[in-house]
């Protein structure tokens, strides 16, 4: 259903630029790939977690004696059994391993059990008696922002406040438009539920953990601190990961599983069900955003004013970083000289929120793109013209004062998207499956209206605010075979095949073996922030280049040639100024060349009190145009087509890249029209796939994608991260299309049927 166009000459099979096959695809289509939930050990026990049933309560007593008395139960652990740091967290360690005196959200862990069967675990959890004294729950983030509200945590209710002041705060123009927008709580909803297997060391003083995560070394650091163990005694191996999308950045069951293992000295398997998964990982921050734009009569932006309130839930997770991403992207991919922006990330008794694909920028983009359409309407421009008129270029400044020195083909993304043909009108007598409502067969074709809408976005790549981010890789080249070792989490995005492509290209080999992904090599950082192609790709590239240099030195010495004249051509070492041509397999026969490289991106800085500073590394851009059909009476929406042109720097694997674009678009579609965790007094009303709706094949639009290839000089391979941009501006594009079809002033996502038809 999708198309993508390329013009390059075809590369050697399996190298960069080729749609090389994923090494993990074969085992995956056969059901032979081992996911973390497939891990199994003789003599293993099952672990399970007891969770709070209150959004806010004092724990008066926890009595585990009845649970311990059940046949088959090996142990029950509570806060008293945590030997090290009682809390953990990615940025602030404020989340208890087990709640001790107070619970702050429904689902907060209180105890863990180990038993011989999942059913025994379930009975044991039921037998634990927790006496609660309920406290008033703080579930409204705006109330949390009020200094008069009593703190629900010793560290207070404001997780972070940051302001941005740039230019003249009184600047204005003849056009002033404003709106208040809401974004609901989205779930990452990866399919592969949280699971881990912990294996005790022979002496019982350390352990091996097989776990699905995004960042092995960060997990190890947090686990070791809670266990009071030397990190060397905690060794992690990546269990097969069934999707992540940010939900595996934070610790979920890792510490509990490790504690049960150390206590019982038996292998422990833990595995969440779907409902527990909803409770056990962080979500996308629900947000309320007020924005006011000032513009000249011709639609040129003068000033953006904004206030952001992000609901961080009970614990910090990455809220402070999500907030900075949100507010520093308030202007969108547009020039804007003046800014007055404030943002708050707030602590409430709602479930904790943290990383999800797009990381704060999704929320900002829904607001700024809705605003751009208001500016367009006030200036009498169409949605494309207003965006072209304001499009950012390389060298323009953000409202933080940072110069955008990344390649910034915003205008080209918009123009190439606009060139994609619109879909044919809905044919008379269309198949009911093609109407809004899909398999519900509900819509009445005469009441279906079509609309078109636009969204354009900017997204930072890698981590920000001074974090010294790096990734390490090793290579060993011998007998024409390269073996790569790194700790980069493959979560489905396709890094494994990319690593092989890099090694084949740089070293002139066909066969690339991948060592297990584990903590036996330096950290790769997290598989998040669209960073692994740049960071771990850079590490693999660097390691391979070092090994290649050593190979050239050896070949040069043997043949009396200056190594600087040697190059790789296909699978041969060649003398670029002579006739020597030696196959790499022969040149590496019976000897080994190694390389290890730690790739760092350039340093970033903090923001000052006025939100000024070079806090981001680099940026990527994308445009989306959505076409929808809406049943006016039922409020049902069918997304017919999404056209997109994305700034990717350089396409390294066309098929994998297209898969990222299409997959991101589906998640952005989900946020636009169906996906929301509904909370009532802090309690999830729909923590199941029956009630939390995800896009199915019948919801999938036709996607027409174009890659905008302008290699990024700062990026090791010329390629920008491509994971997050696809899911960001597609959401406002779809909502704009629904507005166009219905005339409704829609200010929240997801758009619900009642928002359209009541």
């Amino acid at each position, binding site marked *: *259903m*999708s198309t993508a166009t390329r013009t390059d000459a075809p590369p050697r099979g399996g190298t960069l630029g080729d749609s090389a*096959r*994923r090494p*993990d*695809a*074969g085992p*995956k*289509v*056969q*059901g*032979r*790939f*081992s*996911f973390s*939930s497939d891990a*199994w050990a003789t003599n293993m026990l099952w672990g399970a977690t007891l969770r709070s049933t209150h959004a806010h309560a004092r724990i008066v007593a926890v009595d585990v004696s009845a649970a311990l008395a059940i046949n088959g139960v090996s142990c029950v652990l509570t806060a008293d059994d945590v030997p090290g740091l009682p809390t953990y967290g990615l940025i602030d360690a404020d989340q208890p391993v087990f709640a001790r005196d107070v619970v702050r959200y429904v689902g907060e862990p209180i105890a863990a059990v180990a038993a011989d*069967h999942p*059913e025994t675990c379930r009975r044991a959890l039921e037998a634990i008696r927790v006496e609660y004294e309920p406290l008033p729950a703080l579930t409204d983030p705006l109330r949390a922002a009020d200094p008069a509200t009593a703190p629900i945590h010793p560290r207070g209710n404001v997780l972070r406040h940051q302001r941005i002041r740039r230019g003249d705060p009184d600047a204005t123009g003849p056009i002033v438009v404003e709106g208040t927008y809401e974004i609901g709580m989205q779930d990452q*909803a*990866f*399919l*592969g*539920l949280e699971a881990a297997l912990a294996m005790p060391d022979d002496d019982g003083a350390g352990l091996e953990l097989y776990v699905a995560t995004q960042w092995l070394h960060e997990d190890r650091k947090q686990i070791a601190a809670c266990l009071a163990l030397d990190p060397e005694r905690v060794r992690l191996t990546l269990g*097969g*990961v*069934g*999707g*992540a*999308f940010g939900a595996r950045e934070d610790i979920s069951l890792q510490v509990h599983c490790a504690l049960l293992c150390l206590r019982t000295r038996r292998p422990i398997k833990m595995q969440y*069900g*779907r409902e527990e998964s909803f409770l056990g990982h962080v979500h996308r921050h629900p947000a309320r955003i007020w924005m006011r734009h000032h513009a000249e009569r011709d639609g040129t932006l003068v000033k953006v004013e904004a206030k952001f309130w992000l609901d961080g839930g009970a614990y910090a997770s990455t809220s402070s970083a999500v907030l900075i991403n949100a507010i520093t992207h308030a202007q969108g991919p547009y020039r804007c000289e003046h800014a007055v922006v404030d943002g708050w990330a707030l602590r409430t008794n709602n479930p904790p929120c943290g990383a999800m694909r797009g990381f704060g920028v999704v929320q900002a983009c829904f607001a700024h793109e809705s605003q751009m359409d208001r500016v367009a309407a006030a200036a009498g421009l169409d949605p494309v013209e207003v965006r072209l008129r304001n499009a950012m270029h390389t060298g323009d400044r953000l409202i933080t004062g940072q110069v955008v020195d990344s390649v910034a083909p915003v205008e080209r993304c918009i123009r190439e998207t606009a060139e994609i043909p619109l879909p044919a009108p809905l044919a008379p007598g269309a*198949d009911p*499956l*093609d109407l809004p409502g*899909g*398999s519900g067969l509900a819509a009445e074709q005469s009441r279906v209206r079509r609309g078109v809408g636009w969204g354009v976005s900017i997204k930072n790549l890698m981590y920000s605010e001074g974090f010294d981010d790096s990734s390490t890789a090793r290579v060993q080249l011998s007998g024409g075979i390269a073996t790569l070792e790194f700790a980069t989490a493959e*979560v*489905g*995005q*396709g890094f494994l095949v990319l690593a092989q492509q890099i090694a084949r290209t740089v070293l002139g080999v066909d066969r690339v073996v991948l060592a297990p992904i584990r903590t036996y090599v330096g950290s790769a950082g997290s598989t998040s922030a669209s960073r692994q192609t740049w960071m771990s790709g850079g590490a693999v590239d660097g390691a391979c280049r070092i090994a290649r240099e050593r190979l050239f030195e050896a070949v040069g010495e043997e043949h009396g040639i200056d190594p600087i004249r040697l190059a790789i051509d296909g699978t041969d070492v060649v003398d670029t100024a002579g006739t020597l041509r030696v196959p790499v397999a022969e040149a590496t026969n019976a000897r080994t060349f190694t390389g290890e490289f730690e790739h760092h991106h350039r340093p970033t800085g903090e923001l000052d009190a006025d939100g000024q500073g070079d806090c981001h590394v680099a940026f990527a851009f994308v445009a989306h145009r959505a076409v929808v059909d809406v049943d006016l009476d039922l409020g049902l929406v069918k997304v017919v087509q999404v056209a997109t042109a994305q700034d990717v720097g350089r396409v390294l694997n066309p*098929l*994998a890249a*297209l*898969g990222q674009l*299409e*997959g*991101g678009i*589906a*998640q952005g579609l989900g946020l636009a029209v169906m996906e929301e965790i509904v909370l009532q007094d802090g309690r999830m009303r729909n923590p*199941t*796939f*029956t009630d939390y709706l*995800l*896009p*199915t*094949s*019948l919801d*999938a639009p036709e*996607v027409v994608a174009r890659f905008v290839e302008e290699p990024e000089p700062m990026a090791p391979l010329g390629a920008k991260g491509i994971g997050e941009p696809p899911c960001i501006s597609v959401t406002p594009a779809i909502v704009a299309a629904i507005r166009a079809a219905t005339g409704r002033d829609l200010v929240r996502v997801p758009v619900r049927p009642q928002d359209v038809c009541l």
Partner: protein
Amino acid sequence: MSYTLRINGEDRVVQDATISESLLFVLRERLGLPGTKGACEQGECGSCTVVMDGEAVCSCLVLAAGAIGADVRTIEAVSPAGEYNAVQEAFIAEGGVQCGFCTPGLVVAVQHLLDRTPDPSDLEIKEAISGNICRCTGYGRVFAAVRAARDARRAGAT
């Protein structure tokens, strides 16, 4: 309790099981067949799809003891290790696999579709796999894989 199930053409004895166990649990945890995945426990996502007496079913919704006497086929029976049939080959070649958690269920569902409907239309493909949720691909490459498998089978592949 102990009982015997007919799995992939073999009689398999399930020993010391409790009556409440689903077919999914027994396949994965008792019979060493972890290819079938579980992701929702409610029959919504299709990750646990197996074919039972010729019908594609969600094994999470089938009580294992209720499958006594039935012919159950799982992903493990689709092809021998290291060999791919037309559907599997198409998923690999067309980029239909990302994290791969939904893939075994999708392969079983698509195989089942093409066995019954050798020449499905695009809309029939969409409807046939609408019970298999994929969170990674947005379905574009999955549709491409099903079309490629359909075309390969029509050209004689198995």
